[in-house]
């Protein structure tokens, strides 16, 4: 097997706040293979976005600090190559799409100019040539009469169109890895589907890898090859996408699946089950499993000792003591 394109090992990100050190990302390891789509799911505030920003070295510092870990991209350690080398990598080899297409575009620059910017920065193209390619790319992301719209400002475009512009901006240099941070969350459901299929089509064409960050399991089910579930800064379960939906192991994953509405099936008309409680504040240092307080299956050991990742098979593992007592395994539904 070829080595992964992106290999994050034991990444740890701290934020120094007046309330103390908040560990937003606590020993996350994840790998993205060439051409693979990896989904990173979890509730708000569980460290998904911080993880993605850490890969690109975009953690605001201070207060943030990457305190441990390695992020290998091909054979380079992104945490060690320095800000200039990292800047040259961003937008060229690793790109990112953000959640809010409303706020992720500069309100006072024409969209053509913004799509052309990475080309001018990374390829040193003169403005006219860059604008020409930007027009071509806007056509590829299916913006109607793209050439006429080059000089439009973001406020003249709908949310879906703006997200297409963001995608064009992120992909125009042909990156090897695209990090998409909730790319469809702010969009209407119908537009969501269009944007997702556009992203997947572009990904297939360019054989790029993708790290898809979302809280929407539906999006993950449609697009990802593998899924990692994050909770309170840790990866609690990792599995190929079908395995995760068919046999979720970690009680948190099960909770997430139960709280997701589904069409048809036997549970029609049933109330959705939420996971009680909220993610613990990251300033607290917890002994034992971080999910114990909200876990329906928690027992004594969960509150005393921290579970280590344990595998069901080679690709599917979870961080849960229940693994040692398979009988207690909750029923998913």
């Amino acid at each position, binding site marked *: 097997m070829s080595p992964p394109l992106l290999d994050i090992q034991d990444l740890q990100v701290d934020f120094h706040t007046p309330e103390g050190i908040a560990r937003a990302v606590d020993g996350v390891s994840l790998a993205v293979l060439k051409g693979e789509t990896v989904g990173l799911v979890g509730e708000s505030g569980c460290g998904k976005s911080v993880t993605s920003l850490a890969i690109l070295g975009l953690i605001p510092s201070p207060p943030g600090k990457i305190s441990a870990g390695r992020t290998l991209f091909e054979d380079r350690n992104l945490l060690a190559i320095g800000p200039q080398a990292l800047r040259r990598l961003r937008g060229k080899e690793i790109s*990112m799409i*953000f959640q809010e297409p409303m*706020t*992720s575009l*500069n309100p006072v*620059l024409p969209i053509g100019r913004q799509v052309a910017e990475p080309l001018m920065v990374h390829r040193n193209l003169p403005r006219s040539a860059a604008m020409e390619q930007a027009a071509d790319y806007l056509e590829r992301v299916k913006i109607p009469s793209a050439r006429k719209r080059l000089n439009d400002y973001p406020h003249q475009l709908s949310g879906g169109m703006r997200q297409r512009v963001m995608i064009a901006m992120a992909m125009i240099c042909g990156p090897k890895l695209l990090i998409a941070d909730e790319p469809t969350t702010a969009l209407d459901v119908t537009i969501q589907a269009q944007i997702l299929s556009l992203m997947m089509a572009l990904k297939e064409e360019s054989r790029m890898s993708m790290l898809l960050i979302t809280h929407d399991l539906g999006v993950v089910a449609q697009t990802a090859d593998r899924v990692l579930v994050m909770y309170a800064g840790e990866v609690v379960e990792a599995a190929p996408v079908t395995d995760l939906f068919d046999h979720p192991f970690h009680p948190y994953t099960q909770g997430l699946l139960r709280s997701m509405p589904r069409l048809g099936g036997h549970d029609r008309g049933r109330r959705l089950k939420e996971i009680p409680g909220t993610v613990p504040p990251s300033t607290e240092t917890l002994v034992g499993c971080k999910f114990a307080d909200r876990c329906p299956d928690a027992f004594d050991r969960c509150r005393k000792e921290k579970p280590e990742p344990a595998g069901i098979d080679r690709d599917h593992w979870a961080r849960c003591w229940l693994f040692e007592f398979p009988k207690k395994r909750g029923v998913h539904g």
Partner: protein
Amino acid sequence: MKRFFSNLNFTVGFTMSLVVVLAAVLSLVWTPFDADKMNAKNRLQGPSWTHPLGTDQYGRDTLSRVMTGAVSSIIVGLVTVAIGLSLGVLLGLASAYFGKFVDEVIMRISDLLFGFPAVLTAILITSILGPSMINAMLAIGIFYIPVFARLTRAVAMTLWEREFITAARAGGVGEWTITWRHVLPNILSPLLIQGTVQFAVAILAEASLSYLGLGTQPPTASWGRMLNEAQTFMSRAPWMAIFPGLAIAWAVLGFNLLGDGLRDTLDPKMVRMR
């Protein structure tokens, strides 16, 4: 454009300012009489068909001098705002970008400058450097630096937190380019608004300094200077004071309304909503 002219403040302010600018431009090529030409026969004449605004103690035509005075006022407005804008924006951007120590130093110096009464200090500066239009512009301009620096810093600081800046960074754009291409263009409209208002304030400040004899020097026509000269003849030739005074009020009001109108239409909040 329609958006601007549907605003009453803007329309009135724009029209009034335009009159001032046109009068100044016209005076460069044509005035009813030579503004500096003395004519003892015609001294202290009241408004008439030949001299619509009367004449002064040397028989110079007041209309011609008011028109020429507009040139001094506009030059002072432009130069002082240019001094304040260029240095203020640079310092404000630096303050917002570097933060910490740099920010602290720049902002404390700004506070210090704000603490001085501006006109008094301008008087101090002009009396040290000697009275002249250039020194008056320097004195006023220096006080504009912190005004623009604070404004730039405040807006830039919120901009650096915006998502599109992170998006630009994620695209590999350098910090310098982000500052010029993404931060600065987003500050332009508040700067334009502030600049217009400061322009009006500068006209008033120049008039004050010239009135005290510290600004524009004779024989160059200046509204403040004309008021000063009119003082002695207040009862005999009140038009000598009334018309330059009206000119000052007109110009200051015009540019202030223009600034207000710009604020109404370019309100930073509305820019943010786009």
